[in-house]
């Protein structure tokens, strides 16, 4: 089925010639890039560049028009969100998609769904296997709350928490499932400087200490350049840059996409 010559085993994810359009409007065209195991890969680009759409394809929310995804050596023309979750792709959403009426602890517990091995009857009758699993889940949720310093919020209903804390809870819900690939859609959006620094530390720690590969979308270029080892730049659905932060910073296409307006202004008003 798979051609070993083509599959690079140090790649956890290969995006191959993915195209996506909405009612004829191209959102992503012929996009290809690879994510190496254990790296933090940042997707950057102006609004509407197709970053979130790409994340939605990676966990199966959107179905691409063409192309394929190779994840963990398996080839997918399309992947269903449930399959993606079961194979270890976890994600957060741009505008928090938490279960607002449930407590922090319950939200975290739902994140373990993909590890459920007992069936409904076993759970209803509280058979030993189900009880052990429940205990194991509670322990995992508890150690996650500790890791993200969320213990003091354990029993608070999520809807009542500050936005920055909610973002951390959503990260927790994704992380508790021990994913192999973590997709973060603007994890720092709407945060103040302190919260951003804190969140950045968590992402670094998740990557370095837990060994989780991270693909994230972020607008704060300063943070992206420090945080990630690999940057992919999108503009109007096309890849215009792909490399290390240093390579991206000296890439003329990226500079013109990001700073194009500034260069024009210089031409118009040469002297200050």
């Amino acid at each position, binding site marked *: 089925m798979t051609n070993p010559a083509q599959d690079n085993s140090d790649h956890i994810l290969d995006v191959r010639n993915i195209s996506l359009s909405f009612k004829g409007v191209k959102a992503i065209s012929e996009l290809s890039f690879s994510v190496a195991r254990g790296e933090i890969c940042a997707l950057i680009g102006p609004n509407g560049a197709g970053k979130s759409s790409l994340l939605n394809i990676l966990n199966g929310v959107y179905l691409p028009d063409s192309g394929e995804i190779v994840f963990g050596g398996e080839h997918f023309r399309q992947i269903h969100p449930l399959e993606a*979750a079961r194979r270890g792709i976890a994600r957060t*959403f741009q505008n928090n*998609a938490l279960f607002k009426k449930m407590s922090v602890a319950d939200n975290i517990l*739902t994140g373990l*769904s993909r590890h459920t091995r007992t069936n409904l009857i076993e*759970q209803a009758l509280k058979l030993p296997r189900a009880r052990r699993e429940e205990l194991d889940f509670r322990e995992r949720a508890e150690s996650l709350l500790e890791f993200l310093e969320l213990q003091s919020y354990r029993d608070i209903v999520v809807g009542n928490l500050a936005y920055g804390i909610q973002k951390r809870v959503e990260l927790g819900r994704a992380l508790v*499932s021990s994913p192999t690939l973590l997709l973060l859609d603007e994890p720092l959006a709407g945060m103040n400087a302190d919260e951003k620094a804190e969140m950045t530390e968590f992402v670094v720690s998740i990557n370095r200490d837990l060994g989780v590969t991270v693909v994230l979308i972020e607008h704060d270029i300063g943070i992206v350049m420090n945080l990630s080892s690999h940057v992919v730049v999108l503009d109007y659905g096309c890849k215009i840059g792909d490399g290390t932060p240093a390579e991206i910073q000296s890439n003329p296409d990226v500079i013109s996409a990001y700073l194009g307006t500034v260069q024009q202004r210089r031409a118009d008003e040469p002297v200050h």
Partner: protein
Amino acid sequence: MNLFIETFIGGLLAGTMYSLVAIGFVLIYKASGVFNFAQGSILLFSALTFVTLKESGIPFVVAVGITIGVLIVGAIAIERLLLRPLANRSPMTLFMATLGLSYIVEGLAQGLMGAQVHPLDLGIEDVPIFIGGVLISQFDVVAAITALVLVAILALLFNKTRIGISLRAVADDTRAALSIGINLNRIWQIVWAVAGIVGLVAGMLWGARQGVQFSLSLVVLKALPVLIIGGFTSIGGAIAGGLIVGAAENLAETYIGPFIGGGITPWFAYFLALAFLYVRPAGLFGELAIERV
């Protein structure tokens, strides 16, 4: 004053039966966003299955067990054949599908088990008793207690079990629930089965009162004002709505009835629902869908 209290309490107790019917709707609406028009037919089907089994000499508990089994199989079939193929379609499409389903279930029920009226004796005497000087129907008291127990069980299921947490997660944000690996199809099967079991309890109580017959499926029309008043998304709302409708109907019949020639009960609930639509369109406990545009 005694008459008022009697009418009021009698109405509240009768209202719990409306609540039971409405809860079946709320469960399905919350988990899958579908207004399940077939809930009434499912109620009829389950009551008819139970009474047919019981008439053939099968003991009460066994008959309930078999009926629940049938409801679970039915829920799985509905999810596979109806909900899964139509996933992501508009609410109107799904509503129309349940409208069709209601005829299929009704036809199946009558085709398999006949259209005659079956008397159902649950062993509860329908004679009024005095409680603290107030005359109250014994049957209504039993029905109300049954409803309470059922609601308590549902509350435990939703709040204390992992399946319950998954159910609430799906009700809250389907897309997120799917992305963290909750099996939506399985959740739908469970919810439809639970709604069917709630329907069975409601059908048994209604059936004991007026016989198990075709008109049972029409309680769906009675649940509608209850849902409008209580809200489509809240079990607490379904209970409150049922109580309000029950009490208001009874009071109106007693106090307004004589002036306009009686016969208020059949329409008063709808009148009340209309008033609520003017004042509080989302119902008492319902949520208005607020979307960013």
